[in-house]
Each structure stands twice: as C-alpha cells, then as structure tokens.
C-alpha cells in the first residue's frame, strides 16, 4: 500500500496542476546547474588543444574532486534527467507551424525543440560511451579514449552535431529563461538579449568544436 501511495504522490507532483512550477523548475535547471556544467565541461575539454597531457591532467582533476559521485548525481544526472524527460514532453505537445509563420522567433522555437530531442539521444550515448564504461571498469576516460571515438568519421560528425546542438540549446535557453522569469519584457530588451545569447552560442561553439578537432 505504501508503494501505491508513493507512486500516486509522484503522479500528483507531475500533474497538470503543478505545470507552472514544473515549467519554472525546467527553465531554472537548464541554466543552474546544467548550463553552468555544460560551459565548464566545454572549457575543460578545450585543454585538448594543448595536447594529451594537459587534457588528461584537467580531466583527472575533475575526476578527483571530493564527493565526486554526489556532485555527479545532484549537479548533473538528476537535474539533467528531469530537464530531458520533461523537455521531451514539452517538445511533443507543440505543433510547429514555421511554414505559416517563418519568423526568426518561430524558427528558434522549433530549433530549441529539435536540438533538445537530439541532445537526449546524444547525451545518453555520450555518457554510455565514456562515464558508464569507466563505471563498469571497461575503460579509462582520457585523451586516447576520445581520440579513438572521434577517429570514426561518423562519430566525429555525431559529436559535432551534439556539441553545436548543446551550445545552441543553452544559448537560446538563456534567452527564454530571461523571458520566462520576466527579466526581459519589452521588445527591445528581448532583441538585445537575442544578440547577447547568439554571441554566447558562437563563443561556446568555437570552444567546443576546437576541442573536438584537437582529438583528430
């Protein structure tokens, strides 16, 4: 019986009555901690441009952080899973109409959902291929591992698509975070934040793709 109540409580929390709070949580978690983690991850990856030793040193530093399992679960996996699964639900409740309204914002709306779904697939695969392999003791996460993966041209393309999707989704997500929390209201403020977030997209994309190129 208690299991039944726990399940029912879970269902109630995820009910439509709590939609407002779930959407706000979804928006917040996308920036803190997930957005911060993505930016940090891309910056650490960038050590690859300075050679295998620099990358291995940086990744070893991250691995040897105290409470690393706690950090991974509470800063990455749990928020990421909520953001991913609730995001897929949001994506599939939309009925996109870019043929009818081919405006910039309507395309951004569609791309945010498309990149989100790509990212669910990419990140699941990426974690399976790297962190999960280490967890089961099958492999070491280091420069050679990434060089092996990216030596396959198809995988390289998959990773470029994944990284660009992530940087776009984050940058455009910052724009919608600012609207969703009522920080940018006027058309002018929303236009300026479009420029700023597209700048963030370009900067993070350069950092991310440069790191990928360093492995091949």
């Amino acid at each position, binding site marked *: 019986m208690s299991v039944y109540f726990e399940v029912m409580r879970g269902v109630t929390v995820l009910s439509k009555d709590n939609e407002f709070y779930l959407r706000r949580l979804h928006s917040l978690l996308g920036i803190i901690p997930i957005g911060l983690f993505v930016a940090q991850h891309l910056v650490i990856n960038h050590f690859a441009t300075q050679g295998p030793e620099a990358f291995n040193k940086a990744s070893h530093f991250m691995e040897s952080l105290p409470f690393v399992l706690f950090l991974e679960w509470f800063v990455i996996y749990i928020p990421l899973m909520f953001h991913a699964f609730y995001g897929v639900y949001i994506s599939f409740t939309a009925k996109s109409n870019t043929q009818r309204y081919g405006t910039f914002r*309507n395309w951004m709306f569609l791309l945010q959902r498309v990149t989100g779904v790509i990212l669910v697939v990419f990140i699941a695969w990426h974690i399976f291929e790297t962190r999960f392999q280490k967890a089961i003791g099958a492999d070491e996460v280091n420069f050679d591992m990434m060089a092996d993966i990216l030596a396959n041209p198809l995988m390289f393309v998959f990773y470029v698509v994944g990284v660009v999707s992530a940087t776009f989704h984050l940058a455009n997500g910052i724009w919608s975070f600012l609207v969703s929390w009522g920080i940018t209201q006027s058309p002018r403020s929303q236009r300026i934040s479009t420029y700023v977030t597209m700048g963030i997209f370009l900067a993070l994309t350069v950092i991310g793709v440069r790191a990928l190129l360093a492995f091949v």
Partner: protein
Amino acid sequence: MNATATNTVVFEILRQDTTDSTPYWEKFELEYRPNMNVISGLMEIRRNPVNTDGKHTTPVNWDMNCLEEVCGACSMVINGRPRQSCTALVDKLEQPIRLEPMKTFPVVRDLIVDRTRMFDSLKKVKAWVPIDGSYDLGDGPRMPERKRQWAYELSKCMTCGVCLEACPNVNTGSDFMGPAPLSQVRLMNAHPTGAMNRDERLNAIMGDGGLANCGNSQNCVVACPKGIPLTTSIAALNRDTSVQMFKNFFGSDHMVD
C-alpha cells in the same frame, strides 16, 4: 494571377457538413466586382450556391457580425493565415482564395468554429473588474490618463481567436489557454479597481493550461489583427507570477499591493 485581369474571383473553401464529418474542398468562381472582400464573395456564393463543376450545392456557412474588424466573429484562415474575413480585400489576395476554418477550435460547420474555450478561459482568469456590492461602493481610485491610454491598447482584444490559431502550443494535445486571456489578466490587473483582485487572477494563470505553457514562438504578436503587445504582456505576467510564487510560498502581507 491578378483578379482584375481575369474578371472572375476563385474561392476554394474547406467545407464540413457536421461537427464530426470529414472535411472536403469545394471550388467557386464568381464574377469580379470592385472592392470585394471575402464576406461579399461568401454572400454571393450564398445567393447562388453553384460550384465550378456546375453542381448546385448548399450555401457556405460562416460567422459574422460587425463587418469592421471589431467583433472578431468572422475570423477564418485565408490563404493559410488566420485573420478577419471582413477586412480581407479580394484585390489584395492571391488567387485562388483558400478559406479554411480555424481548426484549433472545434468546427461547427464549414467556416464556423466554436470559440467557447476562449470565453471559459476569460471566466477562469476572472477577466473583469468586480464592482457589485450590497450598497453603493462609490467612485473607485482614479487611473492616470497616460496609463489609461496604454491600457486602451490591451482592451482592443476582441477574443477573435487568431492568436490561438497562430500559437504552436495551442492544439488538441495541450490545455494552453493561449495569449488572449493572458493579456486580459494584465489589462484587468492594471485597472486601479481591478488590481484589488490581482492575486486571484495571477493564481488562476498559474494553474492548468496557464501562463507557463507559453513557448515564446511569438507568433501571436505577429498575428494579432489589433496589434496588441501580447508577448510583452506574457513577459510582464511572467515577472508578476515570479513574485506571486514567492508570496504564495513564504506568505506575504502584500498580496494585492
């Protein structure tokens, strides 16, 4: 193709006989007259309901009232875009002119849709200023003239449903009430007397199908025939509900001010 050159006007209309029957296209060719609008074309079809196959058919059903883009009743999808048919001038439209009902709403017959959900939403968000009492409550607080001018723009909403038809998040798979009733919350909350119930309206749009369903595609503000700043209203309500959320959680002595 230019209408004046051919001296005829071709209408392709998506028809539907009952609420749940299968829709079908029917084509009509009319004699061109200067200054025709879509409604005068529909009236001509009603007078002589013969399609391009020469077959006598039932007159096309549509809704209309004011004929000056103030009531919103004659909204339909014209050449792929939702708008009012009274202000859709034939000279300014590509031919054939394709008319469809706004299928975001349940179709009653032909081009008539049932917009009840919009009026239900207005009730849900309490889009009015309550002034009833058991005695004369007297004059309310005054509204600054410049604020009244600003609020007047929001008050132009005619509940036509075009913004709901344009919104990718208003569809059969979602309960989203759409931009129109949300903007009315901003209007009523801006009113000095209406503001006395602002927390009730904010709590209503923080419920099922409310504000949080907006995905910022910003089609509504492009589509609105009255030029209402719907996306600004939504962002402003996002700020108001952010504050309301904390007031609700921690408790506050400032629920309405």
